[in-house]
């Protein structure tokens, strides 16, 4: 009986309306005037002391965005977004100017501490040596601190905020910015290109294996503010990097917009592993509030034998519209996509991936597990394509959905396009509920029904969990077990 009590407590802790990251930090901030026009773009650029070329790039994107219309093809429904009723830039007041950790507002440090993200290096060092993670903390529109910079510098790794990269490494930014996700790629990517405020920049030089996990922690705090960050990761020849991304936001009644762009470039023999645990505020149990998460993530396996691996655990956001993709340009390049999308309450998830095979003998693997509970809708949407000249390519796709309760929906919309005969594509998908026999078996062995469901679900998503870095795995496993237990009965 103790287990049941414990489970119920845990459920209460993490159920949709018990979002534990929902607190708000009272902090003074500098904001751009509400609304979006050319002056907003200029304001953001000026705030960041950007060079002219960066401003021109933004303005170009803004012009393109104005000519575009919002996409409506995804299986998500929401009232029309008023893009003029938003703040596009918000920065904690105290962080302007050069910063060391001591200059950072203690309020902010407290916020991250509450979120479980230690920003003081000595605090992190207290842990096991091998599990150190360098963090770039992004608060609303700006990066507040990046840890372990010196140590990374020694290895030749550049890990800094995007604004810093624009100032310090313009040649790299100019070369790679927009080369994977161009300004006009899609509506939200264009919007991001015009108003992106900050984000992380990573460059791993030739032959370097990044000595620690890199991570960015995104926090939306300010009201009515959209967050538009941009991440650019370049792994030069033979380099390796593992990158983690986490995100949370306070609980609010109104919806907030988050439109990020992530670009990954892997040159010859390079490998990038990108993991996301997305836990934006999902809205309350009646579907009120929550983050609109419209994200464009794309990796370019530009070099031969390069590899990009996306792992995502999606539990938050009112609406998720996100398709981390791989362009497999290099011969023998490899793309991987592992995803767990858990939706509860009134969440709507339309997520998946694109594997675009252009290089010969490139291969890809897609494992997607969707779990829908409550009144949520959970859609997998994916594309696997082989170019006419991309001979010998292989793809294996497996997307499974689990439904818990009879008010939710799970959908699968895969596109498979083979333009040459040597492409070997396999796709399989199943949808089911946990079978009564399985549950019966577990219960017969003395497990409670909640425990049994958690066990089965953890088994169901195991393929994906195994891909997560150690730091995230245990947490995620717990998260999934719990948010599902809440749905049983």
């Amino acid at each position, binding site marked *: 009986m103790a287990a049941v009590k414990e489970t119920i407590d845990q459920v209460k802790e993490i159920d949709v309306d018990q979002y534990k990251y929902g607190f708000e930090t009272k902090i003074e901030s500098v904001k751009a005037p509400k609304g979006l026009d050319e002056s907003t773009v200029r304001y953001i650029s000026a705030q960041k002391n950007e060079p002219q070329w960066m401003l021109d790039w933004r303005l170009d994107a803004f012009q393109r965005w104005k000519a575009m219309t919002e996409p409506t*093809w995804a299986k998500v429904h929401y009232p029309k977004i008023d893009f003029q009723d938003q703040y596009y830039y918000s920065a904690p007041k105290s962080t302007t100017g050069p910063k060391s950790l001591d200059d950072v507002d203690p309020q902010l440090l407290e916020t991250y501490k509450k979120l479980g993200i230690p920003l003081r290096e000595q605090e992190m060092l207290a842990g096991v040596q091998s599990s150190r993670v360098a963090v770039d903390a992004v608060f609303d529109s700006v990066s507040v601190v990046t840890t372990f910079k010196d140590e990374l510098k020694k290895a030749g790794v550049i890990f800094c905020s995007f604004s810093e990269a624009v100032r310090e490494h313009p040649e790299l930014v100019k070369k790679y910015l927009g080369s994977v996700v161009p300004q006009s790629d899609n509506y939200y990517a264009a919007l991001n290109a015009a108003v992106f405020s900050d984000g992380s920049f990573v460059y791993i030089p030739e032959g370097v294996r990044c000595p620690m996990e890199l991570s960015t922690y995104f926090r939306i705090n300010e009201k009515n503010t959209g967050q538009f960050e941009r991440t650019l990761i370049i792994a030069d020849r033979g380099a390796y990097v593992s990158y983690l991304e986490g995100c949370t936001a306070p609980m609010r009644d109104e919806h907030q917009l988050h439109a990020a762009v992530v670009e990954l470039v892997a040159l010859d023999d390079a490998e990038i592993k990108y993991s996301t645990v997305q836990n934006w505020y999902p809205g309350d149990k009646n579907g009120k509030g929550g983050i609109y998460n419209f994200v464009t993530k794309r990796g370019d396996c530009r070099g031969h034998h390069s590899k990009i691996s996306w792992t995502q655990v999606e539990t938050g956001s009112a609406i998720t519209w996100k398709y981390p993709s791989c362009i497999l340009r290099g011969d023998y390049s490899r793309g991987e996509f592992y995803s767990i999308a858990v939706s509860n309450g009134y969440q709507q998830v339309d997520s998946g991936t694109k594997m675009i095979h252009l290089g010969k003998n490139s291969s890809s693997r897609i494992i997607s597990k969707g779990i829908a509970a409550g009144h949520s809708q959970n859609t997998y949407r994916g594309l696997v394509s082989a170019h*006419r000249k991309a*001979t010998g390519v292989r793809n294996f796709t497996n997307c499974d*959905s689990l*439904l*818990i*309760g*009879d*008010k*939710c*929906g*799970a*959908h*699968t*919309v*895969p*596109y*498979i*396009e*083979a*333009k*040459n*005969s*040597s*492409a*070997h*594509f*396999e*796709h*399989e*998908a*199943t*949808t*089911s*509920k946990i079978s009564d026999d399985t549950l019966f078996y577990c219960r017969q062995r003395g497990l409670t029904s909640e425990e049994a469901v958690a066990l089965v679900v953890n088994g169901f998503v195991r393929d994906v969990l195994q891909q997560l870095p150690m730091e995230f795995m245990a947490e995620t496993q717990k998260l999934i077990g719990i948010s599902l237990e809440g749905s049983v009965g």
Partner: protein
Amino acid sequence: MNVAVMKTKAEQGLAEQFEKVADKLPGSTAVKALRAAAFGKFGALGLPHRRIEEWKYTDLRVGIKDVLPPAVSDQTPVTSGDLIVALGPLAHIDAYRMTFVNGNFRQDLSDWDGATGFEISPFSNALTSDSQSSAIDPSVVTGPDGDATIALNTALMTDGAVVRVPEQASPDKPLLVVFIRAGRTAQLMTVRNVIEAGPRSKSTIIEAHVMLPGAVVDGQTNTLNEITVGEGAEIAHIKIAIDEGKSLHLANSNVALKADATYRGFQYTSGQAIARNQTHVTYLGEGGKLDLSGAFLARGSEHIDTTLVVDHAVPHCESRELFKGVLDDRGRGVFQGKIIVRPDAQKTDGKQMAQVLMLSPDTEFNSKPELEIYADDVVCGHGTTSAQLDDDLLFYCMSRGIPQAEARALLIESFIGEAMDKVEHEALRDALMQYARTWLTNDKS
């Protein structure tokens, strides 16, 4: 007629053709109004193109260049000897026969004397009869609303088969409905079949679209089947469309399954420049079963599209789909299969599989198997694979002394044979295999 909204040359041509033949098309005043309304709808929709999600891979705006004159009261001479030649292996099947030449019913080539268990009449009768006693309402179409090919069918339909299987009837032989293209004039044929299987009946209907050797190769066909399967009834519906590489074949089958009804469908398609088989299945009562399979073979620059929507609207139903495709040269295959499980359709069991063999490097296969599920107590799955012939298997056969060409044929046969095994009628299954073999021996590679 509002021609101004028409965009492409083909759309404009269709409008001109429709105006030209509107008075000659069979039908009462009510039917004429129905046609005009349907064509108005088509005018508003236009030819389907790649920006319409359901037609993403089959763009008729690009595909239809020329508009052919609709075949109205065609009298091309065809003898029963010609018919046998045109039917090929199907000619040997012992069946009642109903024949249409260029979309018009031909009594002289039909034979269903003494048929028990089938009530057969031409659809043109239903169009022209003033009384509603025929109980066939030409305005009833159960397929997706807003489909341009269906609107076009209603506007231009000339004839077809109306087949009823009375309650508990079990006809001794299958019914073979033959649509032949003959003559040297390229025409657009628009036909509609209405098939009603009465409660607890059991029947087999073969629908064959073939051409007379020497006939013009670039005909166009638009066919629509309205099929209702009554409580506890079982119907096998085998649709065959064989052509010589230049024609356009647009086919819709709308199937409604009542409680405990079973629909066993098979679609064999080969040789069209563009072919699209759209099947729309709706379950109206619990315990319905669907077993739909097919084989499509494309070479040259042929393009064959199979599009399915299986709508599980009620609980306790089952659906199985298995499609096999063989593509050669620059042949293109499309498979779009959507399984919908509505909120209350618990205990649904749906499985779908599409597999394609790509024999030449320039072939293309686009597949979109979709699941849309709103009920939790269901088992649904789909799969799709595409690959070339397995070299190891080929090597194995050759190492056993089978010449390469033969080994290839053997492997391809066994590949599509899996789908053909779903056809229960033995002679029919053999005939289908015979078609496939003929296709394979014409292999130029």
